[in-house]
């Protein structure tokens, strides 16, 4: 997959190419490329390991499925949560099925799950990958280092559920721009998009628009993490400079992109409507969806940004304006956690051990009597209830049909009122017709006619009805033995449902 941004990507390490890598400075570029290379390894690994699976799976292109999975997770990532595991599997299935159409569905699903689980790397305790690479230290010594990374990570969602998010590494591997600045790459992608659209090259435009969306997601992700920290602890975040700067930057970004993408949207809509070739029309329509999604993400981001200021002030009120206590306390974060985290783990563990030993509380030791033990061991294990309590069979009572009119009567009345649109009739005539069919029917016809006096035009439009019954009072008195009031003119109006629905989509 090539990226439009990569055309402007000049790897700085190329200048150091011919010389052997010696110092840490020259080595840095190499280390960065090695790490980038490592990120692709799990994908190749899938194709290597598929031979070890029980069954004949060589027909599936695992790396392709894996890239598609990363694509899907990235596109379905929301600001708050992530992508749903099951949903991703479901969306992967068509591609897997296309690779081996004659295999059973269960196998397709197994392959999709296998790929997704391997991208998460379910088997390892870290649920991540590790690559080893070597660099020269400042003293010229060769050091082997571990590079740990994840491609898809699991994050907690609302109500204890688990969602998937792609990591920065995965997005970078996917987009192919391994060493570019997020913001500038986005600008580049969008400038390119505009050019492509103006020249009518929609296939390329779609690629560029999708890339722009990846960038947007990546940007939102960075901001989400910073804002979350602000909510947790005012002191943990630099509210003097860093956060206001970041918010200002982000708001500029949103305002900028919003203007930009609305302009693009107008352009593509025009392209879509003017396109004659169905393929072009379809692509343009897809593009409209992508850009709309971008705008939605920006709006979401903006509302979070606006919340940040009030949140900070509320927290500050709580924390800074309370009466100070006389005793000086220990600053657990500032004096323990913060100095501890940069330490090597073999030293840090002594501090955490000390805290645990003194802070976990006490446990009263359990003493066992042989008599109890025999009882406990002989008690049969309790069956775990998987399904919960049994549901009582519902006792259904048939309710008597107490409607005033029967279905047949309604059908008959509707038939009577199904008037041609160019020939409205008087209510008196309709009532007389109805009376000839059934003595009860005039009541139903009168009721329907009265309802038609104020017809639900909006609803009918929204539901795409083609015609609508209406009734108008022209002042003529109704002369009828059973009913009084106005002799309404009842007619059928035609609705331009197709035109309305087209307008509606345009407005949305």
């Amino acid at each position: 997959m090539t990226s439009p941004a990569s055309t402007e990507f000049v790897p700085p390490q190329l200048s150091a190419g011919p010389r052997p890598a010696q110092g840490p400075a020259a080595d840095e570029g190499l280390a960065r490329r090695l790490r980038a290379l490592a990120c692709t390894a799990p994908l190749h690994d899938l194709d290597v390991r598929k031979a070890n699976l029980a069954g004949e799976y060589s027909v599936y292109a695992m790396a392709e499925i894996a890239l598609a999975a990363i694509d899907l997770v990235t596109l379905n990532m929301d600001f708050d949560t992530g992508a749903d595991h099951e949903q991703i599997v479901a969306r992967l299935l068509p591609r897997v099925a296309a690779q081996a159409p004659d295999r059973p569905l269960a196998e397709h699903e197994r392959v999709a799950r296998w790929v997704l689980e391997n991208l998460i790397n379910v088997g390892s305790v870290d649920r991540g990958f590790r690559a080893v690479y070597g660099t020269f230290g400042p003293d010229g010594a060769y050091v082997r280092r571990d590079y740990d990374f994840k491609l898809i990570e699991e994050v907690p969602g609302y109500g204890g559920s688990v969602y998937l998010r792609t990591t920065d590494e995965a997005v970078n591997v996917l987009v192919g721009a391994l060493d570019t600045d997020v913001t500038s790459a986005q600008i580049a992608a969008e400038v390119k998009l505009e050019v492509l659209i103006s020249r009518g090259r929609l296939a390329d435009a779609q690629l560029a628009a999708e890339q722009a969306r990846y960038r947007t997601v990546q940007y939102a992700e960075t901001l989400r993490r910073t804002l979350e920290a602000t909510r947790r602890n005012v002191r943990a975040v630099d509210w003097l400079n860093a956060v206001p700067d970041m918010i200002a930057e982000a708001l500029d970004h949103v305002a900028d992109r919003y203007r930009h993408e609305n302009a693009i949207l107008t352009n593509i809509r025009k392209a879509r409507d003017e396109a004659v070739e169905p393929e072009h029309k379809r692509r343009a329509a897809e593009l409209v969806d992508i850009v709309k999604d971008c705008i939605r993400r920006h709006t979401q981001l903006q509302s979070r940004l606006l919340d940040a200021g009030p949140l900070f002030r509320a927290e500050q009120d709580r924390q800074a304006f309370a009466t100070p206590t006389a005793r000086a306390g220990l600053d657990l974060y500032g004096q323990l956690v913060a100095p501890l985290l940069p330490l090597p783990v073999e030293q840090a563990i002594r501090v955490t051990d000390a805290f645990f030993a003194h802070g976990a509380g006490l446990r009263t030791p359990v003493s066992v009597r042989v008599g109890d033990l025999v009882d406990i061991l002989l008690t049969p294990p309790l069956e775990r209830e998987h399904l919960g309590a049994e549901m009582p069979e519902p006792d259904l009572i048939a309710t008597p049909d107490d409607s005033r009119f029967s279905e047949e009567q309604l059908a008959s009345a509707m038939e009577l009122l199904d008037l041609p649109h160019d020939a409205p009739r008087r209510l008196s005539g309709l009532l007389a017709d109805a009376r000839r069919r059934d003595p009860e029917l005039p009541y139903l016809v009168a009721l329907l006619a009265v309802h038609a006096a104020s017809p639900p035009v909006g609803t009918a439009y929204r539901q795409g009805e083609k015609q609508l019954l209406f009734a108008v009072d022209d002042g003529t008195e109704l002369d009828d033995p059973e009913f009084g009031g106005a002799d309404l003119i009842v007619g059928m109006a035609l609705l331009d449902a197709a035109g309305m629905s087209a307008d509606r989509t345009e407005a949305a």
Partner: protein
Amino acid sequence: MSDHRAEHADAWSERPTDAATGAAAAGGAAESGELPAPAPAAAAHGAVTPADAADAARLVSFGLQPKLLPARDVEYADLLRRYREEPAFARLADAVATGLGLVVLEVSTRAGMAVSAGEDSVFAVRMGDYARRASADSADRFLHGLAHLAVAALAFPRPEDLADDGYIGRITVNGVDAFVRQACRRLEERADEQGENTDPATEAPGLEAAWRIYARRSATGATKDARRLAGSTTGIVGKAVAFLTESGFLHRTGDDAGGAYRTTARYQLQVRDMAGSAAMAELLELGVVPVTDGTPTLVPPSDADDLELTAEAGLPFHA
């Protein structure tokens, strides 16, 4: 099981040296230090009867049930009153506690008889018993310890909160995880800025920076039975808060964000008088002297800045 026990005994072998500094720094130790002297004094008074000793032991046994509230138990409340009103009885109860290897933190109606396990007491909790994996894997052991530290740090975010007896901290499991992750992330950013290569050398995993261990571990994971993945960081934090709840240190208040909890008076005492100072002593021994002048690490922005921020925040969207 047997090699498991051997492991942890080995892991704890360095404890006795630290114990001296830890206990000396603990606030509660001052009280217990005086105990041997007053006990014979009470005996000389001639007032101590076997019934008194039984009552004193009963009070200590109440203290060993940390979830029991004095307000809910008449006998407990009576014994507490007696402890406060009769110095001889108080000394007797203290002596019983010390003899059992307990440290008395506070005796009051709000916290009850708040006792904590001494270093080698039978009541002490060992890391190997707490988490099976922790005895074999030093990364896991560190993460479990850090989870406890992080819960305390988030429950009492400012020194004032820890010092103020009336303060009640509120935490959630996901909140604790996210807070540590954020701290790790800032260290990562700082290392990136300085162009440092933080990937550890393959031969020396013990030299890996502590924050990387946490950052590397996944936050959560899907399991077959929809429970929290035990090895994930939310699983580890979840275990810590569940354990602290059992210890009578936290109260579960809801299910949001992985479980919401509030602190009890006992937890504040335990962190303030025992754990905080013990960990601090260990850190100082490592040669790390965290310098603070008592002011918060963050200086709040002045009002003018604040207003400017709001104006800016709304600006592009009024246009």
